[in-house]
């Protein structure tokens, strides 16, 4: 199989914005349906997920509002309701539903939501996850050694139970670390939202914006790293 590069429907890979009804060629003023001929309109690929689901571009969101809008749009777009319509409308219904489902899945989960927002605001976060967090570097190297040692020791030996206890304590430490990172991320969410709410365009605000985004990016990258280590650890000691 040949090489392929990853691309998850990047929002900046844009097509022309929709402005004219595909069916009657009149100006589309309505949200998702043409006002004149009432045909469903394809959701523009330019539309970000927040706008698509009718919520402000914030990191702390109202889950109920999100779910209600998702259900409302599902009722508008789902292929079940286009069975008797034209092929063109069925195709639009299918595409819109798939997009809606992706948007909802992304925004519902706080981590995916933050990753998506980072992507929107500052470019992809996908490529930056290959080094352990600086302040955990020594600890993780040591942990790797202990893990390797544990894997080669006899089960039910004394060394095994010593190593096991050590790994268990490492696990507790790392899990605490994960919780701390989550708290920190929550705080960054609050800071980001507050900055957006103030809506300032000063140089200072721009500096603040870049700092928050950078910290979110670091937090997410560290989080993924620690999460992988923990799951490796859990699967080893059971």
């Amino acid at each position, binding site marked *: *199989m040949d090489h392929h590069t*990853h691309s998850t429907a990047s929002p900046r890979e844009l097509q022309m914005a929709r402005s004219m009804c595909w069916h009657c060629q009149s100006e589309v003023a309505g949200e998702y349906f043409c006002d004149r001929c009432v045909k469903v309109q394809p959701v523009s690929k330019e539309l970000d997920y927040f706008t698509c689901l009718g919520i402000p571009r914030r990191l702390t969101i109202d889950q109920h509002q999100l779910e209600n809008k998702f*259900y409302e749009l599902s*009722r508008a777009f789902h292929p079940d*309701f286009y069975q008797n319509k034209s092929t063109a409308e069925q195709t639009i219904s299918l595409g819109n539903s*798939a997009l809606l489902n992706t948007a909802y899945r992304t925004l519902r989960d706080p981590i995916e939501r933050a990753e998506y927002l980072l992507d929107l605001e500052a470019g992809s976060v996908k490529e930056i996850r290959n080094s352990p967090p600086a302040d955990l570097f020594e600890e993780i190297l040591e942990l790797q050694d202990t893990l390797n040692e544990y894997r080669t020791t006899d089960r039910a030996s004394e060394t095994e139970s010593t190593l096991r206890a050590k790994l268990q304590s490492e696990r507790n430490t790392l899990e605490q670390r994960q919780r701390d990172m989550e708290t920190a991320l929550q705080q960054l969410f609050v800071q980001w939202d507050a900055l957006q709410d103030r809506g300032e365009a000063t140089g200072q605000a721009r500096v603040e914006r870049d700092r928050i985004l950078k910290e979110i990016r670091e937090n997410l990258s560290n989080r993924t790293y620690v999460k992988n280590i923990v799951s490796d650890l859990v699967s080893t000691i059971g």
Partner: protein
Amino acid sequence: MARIVGIDLGTTNSLVAYMAGGHPHVIPGRNERTMVPSVVAMTDNGLIVGDPAKEHLTRNPERTVYSVKRFMGKGLEDVQSELAYFPYQLTEQGGVIRIKLGEKTYSPPQISAMILKELKQRAEAHLGESITRAVITVPAYFNDSQRQATKDAGMIAGLDVLRIINEPTAASLAYGLQRKTQGTIAVYDLGGGTFDISILKLKNGIFEVLATNGDTHLGGDDFDRQIADLFVREILEQQGLDLTSYPDHMQAVRLEAERTKIRLSNELKVTAVLDLPGGKGRYSRDLTRDQLESLTRKLVERTLEPCRLALKDAALTSSDIDEVVLVGGSTRMPLVRQLVQALFGKEPHCELNPDEVVALGAAVQADILSGGTTDLLLLDVTPLSLGIETMGGVMSSLIRRNTTIPASAKEMFTTYVDGQTGVDIHILQGERELVKDNRSLARFRLKVPPLPAGVPRIEVTFLIDANGILNVSARDVRTGDTQSLAVKPSYGLKDDEVERMIGESYKFAADDLKARQLIEARTEADAILMATEKALKQGAHLVGEEDLSSIRTAIRAVEAAKSGEDHKAIRAKMADLEKATHHLAEVLMDSSLKEALENKKLTEIT
């Protein structure tokens, strides 16, 4: 708009239902039974389906197919371990299992199509209209090949399959409609051959599936097999008789095992009796419910892990589940109910007939598609992760399991070598890291313009539609051209093969229809001849010679037409006979009226 029916195409039994007056109804057959056994037998007079075919299981085991659903979308290697259990002969052609019946071989979709046709005819007879569109249910955990095979079966049967829906979600529709449930429910569906668990959130008419899991090879058949193995072992020990070399007796053992299991759901002890071959007398044995439960406990316990995984994927614990619903005949077993109750900590619901609830739900979904029901909407998920093969034989996941469908993912492809003109893509389904541990769905070759390495950019879109079936399309990002893809399924019929089978099926259908019409006309002709004879005996003296002679001529004409092959000719002569007997019938009516009056007078006098 023409009616859409809902069909539950089951491992053991199949049903058809429709929506009327806001409620789904299962359609019974002429014998008043709602279930059509999913059995097809090849007899000397052609193929028969359902109850009559079931009788051939012991009479003609090599030519009677049951549990064909187990083979849908599979290759021979997938079912190697259980080949010994099936008395009919299985082979493989083009990655698809074939079943040998007499001289011909049939694919599982063709056999399933025969069952579907039976249901189609049943619905047509009941509703008095032609049925061409259907919603068909499949186990939630069916993969893409199994779903596609089910769709193919529908096409071969002459049905436009508007939607494939998952059995547990169908059941939730029927339950939700009846009970107006809100909240989080778990649907535990243990059928004849498959197990599914689905966790759903029901809110204001939206049925959102949060997670699903299951085992497409675990069901009532496996319980029967445990009991049958016990009988066969004991007969070998006690009588030195190896039943495995008697296919007809093996079927009798399987059926007796099933009967015993079913009765043990209501009784604590059942005596199983089997006639032995070669005049060796009878084998009889008491089986208690406790014994059955120790034989089947391991199998039933196998259903619990998928339940836990589904809860985990839904990010819920068992205490978050408001209601548990039982679906499928195997949930009648007390052990199943007991283990389900222990897992979820609440008594499961089983108000709706577990055999019918899936078909009822399919009818509700059919009504949604036809625009009749507008307040309900099912948001289902794909049960298995979808991905492609990357370097080193590793699967790269594109659409995760339990993603709401329709779902799509895009992937960009380029080249490694200058002038390379194609990229091979291998599509997989499953949860494992390595390609070899996952299900191969299909392969295709992406056409690439010959350019320096890395320059071409082809965007491939993988779309899982509302049926849970994959559609692939490709677009050259530089030119904007789209390309059509010839996707070669790993375990499925090719499009042209399905076309051919549809063609054959129409030919057979036309032959079948002609044969059926002829039989019906002959039967009715017999009835009218008999009635005429009776009338002549009672009233020949009341009509003139002219009437009598025209009646006799008409009788001879019906008899002559009856020995022919043309049902229309029979019907025409029957109409003539009715005309000829018109006067006789009137006279008889008068005389019987007169008699009735006279009798009345007599009774009044006395």
